[in-house]
């Protein structure tokens, strides 16, 4: 934090326009509200936590919130800092689509959603597969819709039928 350029030059009056409106120091992890007021994200976050029922800009009382601020990225400001070390996390920047790509946006969005759910669904499957089959190198449960899978289903049903028959026979005799 201390090695960031411009943190300790508060004696220069020209730097006041980049000072956080809450801690009055040079804004760190800066965010800007839609009403144009600058804050450190940790400072603004604490303000919003203090007044959960009245989410107002501390300067002008316009509506404000986690989704109503934009993070500011100066040159090399905090890009080299692991964001996980920062609590609370700063809201993400948004990247709205350019005007001329509006037509394809819905389709693209759908595609993304599909890909994402497929990826999540397949993950535990693959995970367990690799867990249980370290030695024989062959999946214990074959994937559905393969001939092998269907064969195993038929065999297990046959065994079940035989077992029921045996029990019935034992009971009768």
């Amino acid at each position, binding site marked *: 934090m201390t090695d960031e350029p411009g943190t300790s030059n508060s004696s220069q009056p020209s730097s006041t326009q980049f000072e956080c*409106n*809450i*801690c*009055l120091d040079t804004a760190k992890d800066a965010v800007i509200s839609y009403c144009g007021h600058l804050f450190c994200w940790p*400072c603004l976050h604490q*303000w919003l936590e*203090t007044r959960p029922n009245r989410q107002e800009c*501390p300067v002008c009382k316009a509506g404000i919130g986690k989704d109503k601020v934009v993070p500011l990225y100066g040159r090399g400001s905090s890009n080299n800092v692991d964001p996980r070390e920062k609590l609370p996390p700063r809201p993400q920047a948004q990247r709205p689509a350019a005007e001329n790509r509006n037509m394809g946006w819905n389709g693209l969005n759908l595609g993304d959603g599909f890909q994402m759910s497929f990826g999540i669904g397949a993950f535990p499957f693959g995970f367990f597969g690799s867990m249980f089959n370290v030695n024989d190198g062959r999946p214990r449960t074959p994937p559905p819709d393969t001939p092998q899978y269907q064969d195993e289903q038929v065999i297990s049903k046959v065994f079940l039928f035989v077992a029921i028959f045996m029990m019935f026979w034992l009971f009768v005799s």
Partner: protein
Amino acid sequence: MSSIATTRIQRELKDIKESNNQSIKIELKSDEFNNLRGEIVGPSGTPYQDGMYKLSIKIPETYPFNPPIVSFDTRIWHPNISSVTGAICLDILKDQWAAALTLRTVLLSLQALLSAAEPDDPQDAVVAKQYKDNQKAFVKTARFWAQYYANAPGPRDTDCVEKLRKASEMGFYKDISLQALSTHSWDLENAIQYLTSC
């Protein structure tokens, strides 16, 4: 005390020094940053003109996310300030506080409050009633208090001086006599009756 509160107070003290406003002052009471002393000059065109009002300012642990606790040390006759305890009724010191407000803006707001009372949202019901029902007695009392407690300059109202002398000659403390006379809009008989009954 949290580091953000301490650094902010340090910063605010520096800004106030640099702002060069002669009518407001803030200083540390000790080495602690949670206990400060403020002073405002009564605004001109009011009964408080050129009075020096001392304020006690306590900085909570959670400053600036919660407001400072401010009260008048110098006694004042005003509808929104308790004439007994100095407690202040001002929205920005309560639910209208915002983290971007500073001690400087608080003191300037208090000066504004001295210029424009809000009798419909009173702290001192007796003063507020007098302000609404007997404006002349209110101005006379507020001015006398400013001279008596806040060292406001100018000749004192002879009626006030005389009645206060009479009451204290009867053996009542001056502060209590002044309170009783003020409450009864300088009706000496009523004030004495009140003083003897309690």
